C-alpha cells in the first residue's frame, strides 16, 4: 500500500490515474475502464516487485557496514556493539588492521608514548603510514579498562566539517586544559596499522564524521536518455493535447453542421446538449484514446530492460575477478545506457590504477644493470610465468613473496662483489623502517612507505637482513653474520631535500654516510671522480624511468672521525637553535652530503593493476578523456602517468601548474592556452574570435583547432585557486583540450568539484572510478560512479553505481556493456515510439470519418492488450538481447563507441523520424482498409465493411506490421527473439479467436460483442489481401531507406558488421592486442611516498 502511494507520486503514474478517473465519467469514457486499469495494474505490480527487490538489496549492503562490530566500553566492560550504535562520548577499543569506526580522540595505545600508526589510503589515497600520538596524560591510562571507563574529560571542538587535515579542540579533564590538534585524532575510514590496540573516545559519529562530511550529498541520478525521455513525453503530451483540440474542434463543428440533422438518431442526452460542450467532452475522450502515444508501459519497459542489462553485467564472467572472488556488481540499475555515452573518466590512482604494491624490480650497481632477463641468445625477454625466479632458499629469513628474475645479481653477491655488497648494505641501513621479530625467523617490517619496504625487503632477500634497531644502533645480518652498526645521525627526508642519509659507524670504527635520493639531486653532490659512472648510471636511470619505474640513486661517503665530529658540532648547534632551526639543519645536512661516491640506482615498480595500460589505451581510442585525480604527490602521480602511458615523451607539451596564488595560476593557464593556440595556425584570430563566441561553441571550435597531444598536471593548491571564480572557465578550457589531465594533492571534495566543473561546462557524461573513501564524493557527483571492490574498504563501493574488482574491467563495462546498453535502449525507444504512434494515430484518422466522436478503431480488448501483451515482449527481447557487433569487435573497434558520446542513436531528430515513421504506418494502416472496404462486400455477398470487421482487419494488420518491423530492426536473432515475435503473433490470433468465440459471448454478452468476427473476417481472402498490402506498403519504404543509408553513407557499425559476417565465414577471429613498449625515456624525480619526521622519531627513541 505504501508502495502504491509512492508510485502515484510519480508524475507519470498520477497522470494515468487521472486518465482512469476520466474514464469513469460515462459521458467522456470512450474506452471501458479495463483498458487503463489492466495495464496500470500490470505496471504497478512489476514496479512494486522491482522496488521491493532493490530495497532489500540496498538494505543488505547497508547492514553490512552498519553492523560491523566495534568494541565499546560500556559499564566498565568491553562489549561488542554495532557501528550504527556508536555515539559520541563512547570509548572504543580498536585492534590492529581494523577500520576506525568514528572520528576518535586517541586516548592510549599499545605502543610507547601513546603512538599509533594509521593508514589513510581510504581518506586521501596516500599509502604511507601516519603517526598519531595521544596526549601524555591520557596515554598513561594504557589498557586499564577501569581507568578508561572513568575517563570523564570534556572535549570542546569545532563543529563537524569536511577538512581532513585540520582539527582544533580542547580537552578539559581533571581541571586541566589540553589543546587538541589533528595529531591526536583518528578519523573514520583510517586503518590502524602496526599497533596492537588503541583506545579512543568518539568525537563525531555517523554522518558527522569527517569522512561522511566529505562524501557529498547523495543525488538521485538520471541518465541523459531519461531526461530526453521526459522532455519527449512532455512534447508528446503537447502533441496529444493538440490532436485533442483539433478533434474537439472538429467535433464541435461536426455536431453543429452535420450532427444537428441526425438528432432523430443521434440524440442529445441529458448531459450532452450543445455542440460546444460536446466538443469539450470529446477533447477528454480523445485524450483517453490517444494517451497510448505515451504508454504506461514505456517507463516500466525501460526499467525492465535496464534491469536485464544490469543482470548481464552481474553475470559477466569476463568481469569476474577470480583472485578476489568478486563478480562485477550493478548497484544502481537505472544508469546502464549512460555507460555507452561516457566522455570523461575521473580516476583515482591508488588502488584503482595501481595495486598499491611496490616491488624492487631492477637496479644498477656500479654501472651494471640487474633485473632484466635475457634468453640464451642474449636478447631481452619478457618476464612471464615460465621465467625461473631467483631461488632465495639459502636465506632463511627471505620474504617468500619477493621475486626477482635476474640470476646474475645473486651470483655477484655470492662472489662477494664489494660494490654490490655495499649497495645492499646501504639499502639495509639507510631507511626508517622498524622491525619486529615475532617468532624466530619471522621478521616483520613496519614500514611507513611501501617504497622503503620494497627496498629493505629486497636487501633482506639478497642477504642483508635488517634485524633490529635501537636509537643508537642498527643490527644487520650480512650474509649470515650479525653486524651491529652505530647509528650516528639520520639526515631525514623532506620534500625539498628529496634525499635521506644515515651516518653509521661500522664495528671496525669506520664512519660512513649512506645516502639515497632523487637522482637529479644526488648527482650534483657526487665526487668529481664519478663522472663516468654517473653518465652510465644516468643512462640506466633513463631506461628504468622509461619503463615507468620509480628510481632512486644511491651513494656513500667515507668520513674521517675528525670530519664527522666537526660536522656533528654544527649539527647540534643547528638542532639547538631556536628560530629557523630547519634552515640551519638543512644547511648542516648540505654540508656533509657532498663529494659522495655513487653506488648505483634502484628501480621500484609501483605495480599497476593488471591491464591498466591496455584499458587506458583503448578507452582513449574510444575518445574518452581520462583524468587522474589523486591525493598523492605530483611526482608519484606523474610517474604513474608515464607508466600507464597517459603521459608520453611524444607529447607536445606537458603543462604543469603548481602555483600558490591566483595570479600565478592564471598566468600559467594563460601560457598553456597560448601554447595550445600557438600550434594552431591562426592564433590571434581564433583567440579574439573565440572570446566572442558562446562558451559551448567556443569549446568545440577550440578543440578542433588544437592539434597534437598535450597534458596538464595541476596540484591541489593550484586547483583550489583554479576552481575559483573566473579562472574556472579558463581551467576547463585548457584542461579539456589536453589529452591527459592529472590533478594531484587534491582533497576528496576537490575531486567532486572537478567533476562538477566538467559536468557544468561540458555537458558531457562523466564517470568516476575509485576505491577509497576519499573517492566517494567524486563517485557520487559524477554521472556514473564506479567502485573498485574486493579490497577491505567498502565505502567507495557502497556509494557507487557499479563495482568490480579491477580497473581493466572498465574497458569491457564501457565498450561492451555500455555500448550495447545504449544501442539497445535507443533501438528500443525508437521502436517503442514508432509502435505507439502507429497504433494510436489510426484513431486520429478515423476521427475524420466518424464525426469526431472518439470512436475507437479497435476492439477495446485489443487496446487493453496491445501494449502489454501483443507488442511488448518482442521489443523487450530486442532491448535485452540485440547486438549490432559482437563483444570482440566492440572492443577492437573502439571508435564504435563514439555514436554514444555524440548521442547519435536517439535524439530529438531520431525521435521525429520515428514519429514520422509511425505516422506513415498509421496512415497506411487506416487508409488502405478504408479504400478497400469502401462500398465493398464479402465473398458471399454479405457485407464486410462493418465496424467490427474493420476493427479486426486494422488490428491484425497492425500486429503483423509491427512484428515485421521489429523483425527488421532486430539484428541479433536469438531463439528468444524468434519465440517472442512468432509467439506474439500466435498469441494475438489465439486471444482474438477466444474473445470472438461463442462461449465467451454467452457468458459476458456485453463485454465481448465481437462474437464470430474473427471467423468471418479472417476467412475472407480480401481481408488478407488488405493485410498483406498494408504490411508491404508499411515496410518496403523502410527497407529502401535502410538500404540506401547503408549503401550511400555506411556507418562504422555497418562496416564492422559486414566485416564480422565475412570473417565468420572464413575463420574465427583472432585478436592481437600488441603491448606497446615505450622506448622513449625521461628523468624521474624522487617519487617516494615518504614523510618527514620519522628520522627524528627514531633517534629520539620514542617508538622503541
Amino acid at each position, binding site marked *: 500500500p505504501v508502495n502504491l502511494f509512492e508510485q502515484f507520486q510519480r508524475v507519470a503514474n498520477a497522470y494515468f490515474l487521472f486518465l482512469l478517473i476520466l474514464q469513469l465519467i460515462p459521458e467522456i469514457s470512450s474506452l471501458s475502464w479495463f483498458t487503463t486499469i489492466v495495464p496500470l495494474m500490470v505496471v504497478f505490480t512489476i514496479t512494486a516487485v522491482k522496488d521491493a527487490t532493490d530495497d532489500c538489496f540496498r538494505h543488505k549492503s547497508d547492514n553490512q557496514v552498519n553492523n560491523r562490530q566495534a568494541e565499546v566500553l560500556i559499564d566498565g566492560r568491553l562489549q561488542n556493539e554495532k557501528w550504527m550504535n556508536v555515539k559520541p562520548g563512547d570509548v572504543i577499543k580498536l585492534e590492529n588492521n581494523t577500520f576506525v569506526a568514528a572520528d576518535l580522540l586517541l586516548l592510549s595505545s599499545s605502543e610507547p608514548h601513546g603512538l599509533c600508526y594509521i593508514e589513510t589510503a581510504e581518506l586521501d589515497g596516500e599509502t604511507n603510514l601516519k603517526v598519531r600520538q595521544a596526549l601524555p596524560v591520557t596515554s598513561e591510562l594504557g589498557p586499564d579498562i577501569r581507568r578508561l571507563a572513568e575517563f570523564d574529560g570534556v572535549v570542546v571542538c569545532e563543529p563537524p566539517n569536511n577538512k581532513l587535515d585540520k582539527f582544533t579542540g580542547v580537552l578539559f579533564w581533571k581541571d586541566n586544559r589540553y589543546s587538541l590538534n589533528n595529531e591526536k585524532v583518528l578519523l573514520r575510514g583510517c586503518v590502524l596499522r602496526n599497533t596492537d590496540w588503541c583506545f579512543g573516545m568518539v568525537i563525531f559519529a555517523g554522518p558527522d564524521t569527517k569522512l561522511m562530511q566529505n562524501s557529498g550529498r547523495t543525488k538521485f541520478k538520471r541518465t541523459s536518455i531519461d531526461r530526453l525521455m521526459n522532455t519527449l513525453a512532455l512534447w508528446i503530451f503537447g502533441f496529444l493535447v493538440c490532436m485533442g483540440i483539433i478533434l474537439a474542434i472538429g467535433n464541435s463543428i461536426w455536431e453543429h453542421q452535420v450532427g444537428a*440533422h*441526425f438528432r*432523430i*438518431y*443521434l*440524440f442529445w442526452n441529458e448531459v450532452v446538449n450543445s455542440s460546444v460542450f460536446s466538443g469539450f467532452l470529446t477533447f477528454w475522450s480523445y485524450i483517453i484514446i490517444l494517451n497510448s502515444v505515451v504508454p504506461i508501459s514505456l517507463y516500466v519497459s525501460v526499467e525492465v530492460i535496464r534491469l536485464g542489462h544490469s543482470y548481464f553485467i552481474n*553475470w*559477466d564472467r569476463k568481469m569476474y575477478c*577470480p*583472485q*578476489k*572472488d568478486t*563478480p562485477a556488481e550493478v548497484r544502481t540499475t537505472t544508469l546502464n545506457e549512460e555507460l555507452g555515452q561516457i566522455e570523461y573518466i575521473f580516476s583515482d590512482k591508488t588502488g584503482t590504477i595501481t595495486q598499491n604494491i611496490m616491488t624492487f624490480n631492477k637496479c644498477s650497481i656500479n654501472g651494471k644493470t640487474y633485473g632484466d632477463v635475457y634468453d640464451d641468445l642474449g636478447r631481452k625477454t619478457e618476464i612471464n610465468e615460465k621465467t625461473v625466479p631467483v631461488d632465495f632458499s639459502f636465506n632463511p629469513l627471505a620474504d*617468500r*613473496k619477493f621475486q626477482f628474475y635476474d640470476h646474475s645479481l645473486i651470483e655477484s653477491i655470492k662472489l662477494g662483489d664489494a660494490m654490490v655488497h655495499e649497495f645492499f648494505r646501504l639499502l639495509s641501513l639507510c631507511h626508517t623502517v622498524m622491525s619486529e621479530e615475532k617468532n624466530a625467523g619471522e621478521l616483520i617490517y613496519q614500514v611507513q612507505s611501501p617504497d622503503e619496504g620494497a627496498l629493505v625487503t629486497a636487501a633482506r632477500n639478497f642477504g642483508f637482513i635488517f634485524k633490529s634497531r635501537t636509537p643508537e644502533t642498527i643490527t644487520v645480518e650480512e650474509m649470515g653474520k650479525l653486524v651491529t652498526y652505530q647509528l650516528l645521525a639520520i639526515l631525514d627526508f623532506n620534500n625539498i631535500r628529496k634525499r635521506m642519509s644515515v651516518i653509521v659507524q661500522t664495528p671496525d670504527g669506520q664512519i660512513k654516510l649512506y645516502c639515497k635520493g632523487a637522482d637529479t639531486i644526488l648527482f650534483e653532490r657526487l665526487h668529481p671522480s664519478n663522472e663516468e659512472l654517473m653518465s652510465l648510471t644516468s643512462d640506466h636511470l633513463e631506461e628504468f624511468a622509461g619503463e615507468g619505474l620509480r628510481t632512486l640513486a644511491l651513494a656513500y661517503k667515507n668520513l674521517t672521525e675528525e670530519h664527522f665530529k666537526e660536522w656533528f658540532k654544527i649539527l647540534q648547534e643547528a638542532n639547538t637553535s631556536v628560530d629557523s632551526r630547519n634552515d640551519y639543519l638543512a644547511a648542516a645536512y648540505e654540508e656533509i652530503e657532498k663529494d659522495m661516491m655513487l653506488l648505483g640506482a634502484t628501480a621500484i615498480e609501483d605495480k599497476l593493476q593488471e591491464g591498466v595500460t591496455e584499458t587506458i589505451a583503448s578507452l582513449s581510442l574510444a575518445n574518452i578523456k581520462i583524468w587522474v585525480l589523486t591525493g598523492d604527490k605530483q611526482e608519484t602521480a606523474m610517474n604513474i602517468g608515464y607508466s600507464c602511458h597517459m603521459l608520453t615523451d611524444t607529447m607536445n607539451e606537458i603543462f604543469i601548474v603548481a602555483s600558490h596564488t591566483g595570479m600565478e595560476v592564471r598566468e600559467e593557464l594563460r601560457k598553456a592556452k597560448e601554447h595550445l593556440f600557438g600550434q594552431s595556425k591562426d592564433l590571434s584570430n581564433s583567440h579574439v574570435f573565440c572570446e566572442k563566441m558562446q562558451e559551448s561553441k567556443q569549446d568545440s571550435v577550440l578543440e578542433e583547432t588544437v592539434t597534437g597531444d598535450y597534458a596538464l598536471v595541476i596540484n591541489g593548491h593550484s586547483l583550489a585557486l583554479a576552481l575559483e571564480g573566473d579562472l574556472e572557465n579558463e581551467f576547463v578550457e585548457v584542461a579539456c583540450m589536453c589529452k591527459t589531465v592529472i590533478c594531484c594533492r587534491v582533497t576528496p571534495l576537490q575531486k567532486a568539484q572537478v567533476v562538477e566543473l566538467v559536468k557544468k561546462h561540458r555537458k558531457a557524461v562523466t564517470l568516476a572510478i575509485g576505491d577509497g573513501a576519499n573517492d566517494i564524493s567524486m563517485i557520487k557527483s559524477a554521472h556514473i560512479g564506479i567502485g573498485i571492490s574486493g579490497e577491505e574498504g567498502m565505502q567507495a563501493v557502497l556509494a557507487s553505481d557499479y563495482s568490480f574488482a579491477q580497473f581493466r574491467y572498465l574497458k569491457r563495462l564501457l565498450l561492451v556493456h555500455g555500448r550495447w546498453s545504449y544501442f539497445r535502449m535507443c533501438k528500443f525507444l525508437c521502436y517503442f515510439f514508432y509502435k505507439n504512434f502507429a497504433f494510436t494515430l489510426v484513431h486520429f484518422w478515423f476521427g475524420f*470519418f*466518424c*464525426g469526431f*466522436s*472518439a*470512436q475507437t478503431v479497435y476492439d477495446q480488448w485489443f487496446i487493453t492488450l496491445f501494449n502489454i501483451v501483443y507488442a511488448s515482449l518482442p521489443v523487450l527481447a530486442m532491448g535485452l*538481447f540485440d*547486438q549490432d557487433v559482437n563483444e570482440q569487435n566492440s572492443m577492437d573497434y573502439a571508435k564504435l563507441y563514439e555514436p554514444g558520446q555524440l548521442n547519435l542513436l536517439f535524439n530529438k531528430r531520431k525521435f521525429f523520424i520515428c514519429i514520422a515513421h509511425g505516422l506513415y504506418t498509421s496512415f497506411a494502416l487506416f487508409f488502405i482498409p478504408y479504400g478497400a472496404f*469502401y*462500398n*465493398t*462486400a*464479402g*465473398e458471399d*455477398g*454479405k*457485407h*464486410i*465493411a462493418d*465496424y*467490427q*470487421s*474493420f476493427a479486426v482487419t486494422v488490428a491484425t494488420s497492425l500486429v503483423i506490421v509491427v512484428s515485421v518491423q521489429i523483425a527488421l530492426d532486430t539484428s541479433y536473432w*536469438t*531463439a*528468444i*527473439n524468434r519465440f517472442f515475435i512468432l509467439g506474439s503473433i500466435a498469441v494475438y490470433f489465439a486471444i482474438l479467436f477466444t474473445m470472438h468465440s461463442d462461449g465467451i459471448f*454467452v457468458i459476458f*454478452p*456485453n463485454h465481448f460483442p465481437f*462474437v*464470430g468476427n474473427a471467423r*468471418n473476417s479472417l476467412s*475472407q481472402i*480480401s481481408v488478407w*489481401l488488405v493485410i498483406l498490402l498494408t504490411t*508491404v506498403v508499411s515496410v*518496403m519504404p523502410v*527497407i*529502401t531507406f535502410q538500404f540506401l543509408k*547503408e*549503401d550511400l553513407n555506411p556507418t562504422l557499425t555497418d562496416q564492422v*558488421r*559486414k566485416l*564480422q559476417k565475412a570473417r565468420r565465414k572464413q575463420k574465427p577471429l583472432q585478436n592481437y592486442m600488441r603491448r606497446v613498449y615505450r622506448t622513449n625515456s625521461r628523468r624521474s624525480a624522487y617519487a617516494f611516498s615518504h614523510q618527514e619526521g620519522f628520522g627524528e622519531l627514531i633517534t629520539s627513541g620514542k617508538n622503541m
Partner: protein
Amino acid sequence: MAAASSCAELAGRNKPDNTAFTQQRLPAWQPLLSAGTALPLFFCAGLACLALGLGLHFSSATIQRFAGPVCLYYQLSNYYQNHRRYGVSRDDRQLSGDASGLSSPATECSPFRTDPQGLPIAPCGAIANSLFNDTFTLYHLANGTFHPVPLDNRGISWWTDSNIKFSNPELVNGSLEAAFKGTAKPLNWPQAAYMLDTGNPNNTGFINEDFIVWMRTAALPTFRKLYRRVREGNFSSGLPQGTYCLDITYNYPVLSFQGTKKVIFSTVSWMGGKNPFLGIVYLVFGSACILTGFVMLAVHIKFQKQNQMDVE
C-alpha cells in the same frame, strides 16, 4: 602469483554461471540487409504485387456482368453508424435473448431505453430505433407483364450473428408476443419486434435478418448493406438482360441529413464485391517496388566500390 593460487579454492563461489544466456552468447542469426537480399526482395515483391493487382483489377472489372447470383444492396451515405454515441447505444445482452436484458436494458441505450411510459424498449438503443425500413420489390418484364423476381432474405446475415449473437427471448407458452410482454416497441418502429416478419417465426423478433444486418453497424459513413439475394428460379445464374422495375416503399427519411439512398445490384467475385481500390494500389505499389529496385541497384553498383575501399 602466490595470491592467485591461495585464492584458487575461493574462486567459484561468486563466479557467474557460464551459460550462453548469461554470457550473452546465445546462438543467433544476424541478418544483414545486403544488396544480395534486398534487391531480389524488391523485385519479387514488386512482381507479386503487380500480379495480384492485375488479378484483382481484372476480377473487379468483370463483376458488372451480372453472372452468378445477384445481390441487392441498399446504400446509405453521410450516415454515421460509426458515431460513438450511436454505436454504443445497444444492449447485446438483451439481443442475445437474456430475460433480464429485456426487462431492464443497459444504460447505454439511453435515451432509447424506456418509452415515455417507463416501459423498457425492446430492442433498445439508437441503432435499433433507426432500423432501415424501406422495402424493395423487383419486377421483371417478361412477355409484357411484370413478374416479381423472388428475393431471398435468408442468409443475408452472418451465421454467428443470427445463431449466437442474436436470439429471441425464451418463448412464453409458445408465444413470442408473450415473451415480449412488458416491453415497448422502439419509438420509430411501426410495430413491435415480434411483428418484424409475422410469416416466419424463424425470422422475427431479434433474429430477423434485416434487423441483424442493420445492427451490424458500418465502419464508414457511406455503407452498403445486403438487402436480398436473387438466386431462385430463372434468376439463379444472374439477372438476364431485360427490363426490370424496382418498387420502393419509401419509409426511411435521409434528406434531412443530406444523405442519399441507393439500391445496388451486384455480383461478387472471389475477392468479394466490386472495389477497384485494392487492385489499383497493388498495381501502383508493385510498379513502385520494381522502380525502387532499379534505383537501388544503380545506387548500389555506383557506391559499392567506394564502400569496399572504405572498409579496407
